[in-house]
Each structure stands twice: as C-alpha cells, then as structure tokens.
C-alpha cells in the first residue's frame, strides 16, 4: 500500500475540524438567532393548512396585540415530545398565544399527537418541504421564536423548552416585551 494512503483519515479529520471551528467561532452562541433575523418582522410567509386546525396566517400574527411564540415542531422529533407538555402549560396557565409550524411531517401523525396530548397552538401552519423554516433560519426542531406585539422576532430559543427555560428565559422576556411600548 502506498504510504500517503495513511494520511487520508487525518486529512478528512482536519477538514471536519475546520468546519467545526468555523461554526464555533463565526457563530459564537448558536442558540441565539443570527443577527439577520433578530428584530426583523416575522417574514411574510404562506403556510398550508393542517386539516381540522386553524391555519396560521400572517394577519393573525400582526393583528395580535400581545407578545406571542412561534414553535417549530414535528411528530417525529423526540425533544418536541418532551417540550409538548410545557407548551400546554404556557398556553393554559400563562395564557400565551403559540403559533405552531409543523415541520417536514406526516400530517396524520401530527394530527394524532395533537389529539392525544392536546393542542397548545392557536393556529398551525404546515411546512412540508422545510423551505419556510429555511426562511426563518431554523436549524432543526424544536425551535421557538418570541415575537413582540408588532410581530417582530425578538428572541430565538433552540431546542426543547424545559420548565427551567420557561421560568428563566421565556416568561421574563415575555413580561419585558409586554411592558415595553
């Protein structure tokens, strides 16, 4: 065997590491929204409907006079399942309006989950191809955006919302947004 073959693993690894570092240093805290989307209005997107549920429309978002959440989820995603109960809590106990974006999902299964575990969403938009999520800069599911009363994106939460997050980040931000004019 030629000697330089033995360098292939090393070179592959170095390339991988270069990608990693780029990711790490360019985007220092990836749980924050890239600056492009932050403080921008929620993009004017059109969604498909999930049968039996209210369709998420842009008018909904802009006509609502309180801060709200936009949650990107899918029935195949395990962290979403863990997060689900907390979304229900936000809706029922804290009366927060949550819009759902159903991401690359089997619609029947999505419907079943909501039937079974309850529907935390005020209205739902379906993004079967994942294109809309790209416009929002979504890395994966679950991901949650906090919108202020003018429909501007003010915060992005990556990963499932845990009890801890509700207390430490989500509610404080919502309260602050509500007080702001």
């Amino acid at each position, binding site marked *: 065997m030629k000697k330089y073959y033995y360098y292939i693993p090393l070179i592959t*690894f170095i390339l991988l590491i270069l990608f990693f570092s780029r990711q790490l240093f360019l985007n220092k805290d990836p749980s924050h929204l890239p600056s492009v989307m932050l403080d921008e209005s929620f993009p004017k997107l059109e969604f498909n409907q999930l049968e039996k549920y209210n369709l998420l429309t842009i008018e909904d978002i802009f006509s609502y006079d309180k801060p709200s959440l936009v949650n990107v989820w899918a029935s195949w995603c*395990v962290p979403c399942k863990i997060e689900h*109960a907390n979304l229900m809590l936000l809706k029922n106990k804290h009366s927060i309006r949550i819009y759902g974006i159903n991401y690359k999902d089997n619609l029947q299964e999505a419907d079943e989950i909501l039937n079974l575990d309850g529907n935390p969403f005020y209205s739902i938009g379906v993004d079967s191809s994942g294109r809309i999520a790209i416009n929002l800069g979504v890395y994966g599911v679950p991901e949650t955006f906090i919108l202020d009363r003018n429909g501007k994106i003010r915060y992005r939460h990556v990963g499932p919302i845990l009890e801890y997050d509700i207390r430490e980040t989500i509610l404080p931000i919502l309260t602050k947004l509500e007080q702001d004019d």
Partner: protein
Amino acid sequence: MLVELGHFCLALALSVSILQFVLPIIGIKLKSTRALATSTYSSYLFFCLVSFSFISLMWAYISSDFSVALVAQNSHSLKPLIYKVTGVWGNHEGSLMLWILVLSLYSLALSIIGKNIPLKIKSIVLSVQGLIASAFTGFILFTSNPFLRLLPPKLEGEGFNPILQDIGLAIHPPFLYLGYVGLSITFSFSIAALILKQADSIWIKWVRPWAMLSWTFLTIGIALGSWWAYRELGWGGWWFWDPVENASFMPWLAATALLHSSIVAEKRNTLKAWTILLALIAFSFSLLGTFIVRSGVLVSVHAFASDPSRGIYILLMLILFTGGSLALFAKNAPKLKSGNMFSPISREGAIVINNIIFSAAAATVLLGTLYPIFIDALTANKVSVGPPYFESVFIPLMVPAILLCGFSPMLTWKRAVFDNIYERIIFIFIVSILITSFLIYIRNGSAMTFLGIFLSIWLFLGTIYDFFERILRGKSFNEVAKRIVSYPRSAYGMSFAHIGVSIFILGATMSTAYKTEIETSVQIGDKIIVENKELIFESIKQNQGPNWLADVATFRISHNESDISFLYPERRFYPASQINTSEPAILSRLFYDLYIVLGEKDIKNKNFAVRVYYSPLLNFIWIGIAFMAFGGILSLSDKKHRVSYKTLRKNRNLSIK
C-alpha cells in the same frame, strides 16, 4: 462539607491522572522501570478519588441538598429514591462524572487483569488512559463543575420532567458509557502499538476482549434507550434517528467493524493497520457521542456548542485525541509489518467487505447528523435531516451486509473454494425464497417486507446450517455430543449474535409492515376490534400518585373466550408543573404487542381519545438484541481470552531497550 471534599478529591484526581500520563513517559526516556510501574498505582489511586468524588455528588442528590446548584436544577425532593440516584447522570456535569468514573474503572480493570502484559506496553496504555482522564477531569473542573454551591440555597429542586422518570432511561447511560469508555482501552492499545511500531498477534489478543466487551455494553445501552422510547413516548415507534440516538449508533457501527476486523487480525495476522484505524475511529465516535448527548453540543440537529468555552474545550479535545492519533497513524502505521495476503474469496475477504459496509454506514450516519452544520458552513442555507434520509441510505447499505453474513462463516480462511459451498448457498437461497413467498402469499406485503423477511430467514438458515454442519461432522452420537461441548464459545457467540440479527430483522420488518393503528374516541362500554381481539372500555377511575392525579382507564381485552387480560392506560396530570402526560399500557406477548394510549378527555361528551397499536413480533426486536448481547458475553467467556492474559509470564519484566 461532603460536597467540598468531593470537589477536592476531583482536583486531586486531576493531578493523579496527570502523573499517570507523565511518569511512564519519563520512565521510557530515563529507562526507569520504577517510573513505568507507577502507572498501575496511579490508576488505583485515580479510581479511589473519582469514586469518592462521585459518591459525594450522589449523596447530595440523595439527601436533596439544594444548596448545590446542579442538584437544585435537576432534582426534586419528591422524586423516588431511584430517580434521585439516576438523576446524578441525567445532566451534562453529572454525566461527565459518570464518564470518568467508568474510565477509572476500566483503567483499574486493565491494571489488575493485565498483570502479565509487558510492563512497557502496559504503562504506555495506562499513560494514554491517564491523558484521556486528565483531559476529561480538567474539562469537568474548569468548565462544568458539578459541585458549585448556590447562594441562597433553593427550598425545592426544579428537575421534574415526568417523561424522563423511567427505569429504562435512567439505567441506560451507565451501559452506554461502559460501551463508549471501553473503547478507550482499544484506543490506548492502538496508540501503544503505533508508538512501539509493533502490533503482533498477541497484541491483538489483548485488544479483542475489550472491543467485544464495549460492543456488548453498547448493544445493551442502545437497546435500553430504544426500549424507553417505545414504552414511554407513546408513538409505538422504537427508533427515531434522533441525533442523540445516532450518537450512540455511530460508535456501535464502528465497534462492530472493529470486532470483525480484529478477528482477521488475530487469525491471519493481517489487516492490522486497518484494525488500529478502526479502534481510533471508534473511540473518536465515542467522544463525539458523549458530547452530543448531554452537553447541549448538538441539541437535536442544532449547532455545535451552546456554551462557547465548552465548545472550544471539546474541539481541543477532539483535535488532541482524534487528530493526534490519526497523525501518529499516518506517520507510523506504514512501518507496521504488513501481514499475509489473502484472496478476495475467503473469510477474510468477506470480513473486509463487511468492514467497508459498516464504515460506510457509520459515515452516512455521521453525515446525516452533521449535515446541517456543513450546509450552513458551505451555503447560507440552514436545513435539518430527518428519518427519510437515514432510511433511504442506511437500509440499502445493510442489505449486502446481511446477504454476506448469511454465508461468510462457511468460507474458509486464506482461500475458499467457492465450489464447495456454492450448492449450499443456492440451497439456502431457494429455501429462504420459498418460505418468504409462502408467508407473503398468506398475508400480502410490499417488496420491502419481502426483502426484510427474506434476509431474516436467509441469515437464520445460513447460520444454523453452518453450525449443524460443523457439529454433524461427527459420525456417531457420542462424537456429535463431544463436538457440541468442545465447539468454541466464541463460535457459539458468533452464531448467537448472527441469529440475534436475524430475529431483530424479522421483528423490525413485521412490526412495521403489519402494524395496525386505530385512533378513535370512546365512551365507557365502547368496543374496539383489532386483529380478532376485542377491546372493551370498561371503566375509568381517578387515581392519585405521589405527585400526580390520573385518569386510569380499564380495557378488557378478549383474545378468545378463555383468554382475557386487562390493560390500564393512564392520563396523568402533574399539578406542580401543570403538565399532562399519557402513560401507555402495553400488553406484550411473544407474537404481538398491543399498545393503548389514553389521550385528552372531552369533558362535554365524556369521550376519551384513544390510540391503539397492534404490532406483530415487536418483541422479536428486543429478543434479537438480547441474543446479540448474549453472543457477545458468550464469546467473552471463551477461555482463549483468559489464556492470552495469563501467558507471557516469562516475558513479564521485558527489559526496556
């Protein structure tokens, strides 16, 4: 106080691990046997210190000491004791503590079992272990300290996610870590081989049992995680290609490849550089897996690190271990004596193909898991990858692997004469096709179902045929009995593991293809019929747990008149956190699982949403995996492994050149 002592011991452990790393190097430079021999004692000491530190953290959990920040965030005084204990590793900091505890255990085991390994090799191995230990202990101390106090202390803890309170989930990390960290031993042995530029067949004999052990633990650990997902998540599914699952699956694939290539390396004294490379890669996957799972490094398909200082530390560790070892590999692997040649049609040849397939599979899973990061780096787009990718890439890769697995044990080493087994292969092929066609004829099924069942039967028959052929070579009854007894345990292990794979494939295929799913809304007295079984919703009653209120439904299931069982699915409400959860009830029989989930209550009509799954042969998935793990254990118990650690007493004090 105990917590501070634990913290102090961890700091001491760091210094001991640095000594364990440095002293053997000094020993080699100064040719001092004494300095080399210290590595054994360092490993003892490291184990004691880390154990103490771990126990003190565990005590903080058991006693619900909410002045410790970690405990306050992750525990709760109302949790059952078992979940307080297992809660120790249910978070980033604690899971790293478990990691170094397991690492210290392995180093200890190697020091004790490996008494007869030449001192030089053994101390290099322990030195590498020391380096890994110091990197991890440092990582804990400097970026993820579990012993931080909270001022003022909290009155009650915050960690109470009910879905995460499950025995399967709670005990699977220790198994997984026993698997991940076991690969550190094969890694360290490989580094030793590269440094000394020698990897003889006795070397591979030392390495193999550790690879086998790690593989077995990984298999069990992954199965437990999957079992949790099945029972608790309420979807009737058992594998979701979630990044967290993939993180444990990649080291498993690499370990499987390693296991097979090390057989070739041992039997035929060849393929050594490749085996070493696999050992390096397998451990690198373990590192990646450890970080992905708990550290928030890749939350779902998410970005690389949520805390930049941790991220940089992790990156440095990956560069040090993976980069360093691969560089060493590139430099020294060509100097290893290359082994014997072999023909493509031989047992070795088949195993090489197996290796290529498994490596490719690991690479595709890696690609799918990290793809979002690449795309983000290359273009401005952000994407994530779901199950469809994995299914469409992974399954086609596994088909040839299984086909090969059906007959490669029949091939002889060096050069197989294909003519000898040609007829058998054709025979098994035809029988498998016939049985599959018959089954599909009875119950209809898609091409994929046909393929799955065919592969399962093919592998089963191939393995059984091979076994009986070896046994029945004896002429008389006595001779056959003797052959059965003297048949090596490792060969039994292989047969068991391969049959396990076959059972697994059957379970996975059937439970997916013939799953019946009914979603409906029922009132008391309503009847649901699934696959000739009658489910009657008999009653509903309120029940109270330690911290929840529940609606418990009673379903009466009649299979026929004499065979009646009951299932009690629950809908729980946790007032403290205002959370609703469903506790599925599962009737698990050998040939099918009946799975009932109780959903939301419709207060107006007194209706309950109910979902029922009927999955035939679902248990075969777990049975198959159990066979695989049992095969691993059988193979480990083979006496040849003990022998390889007992020989060489003469060479024990091999002089340092």
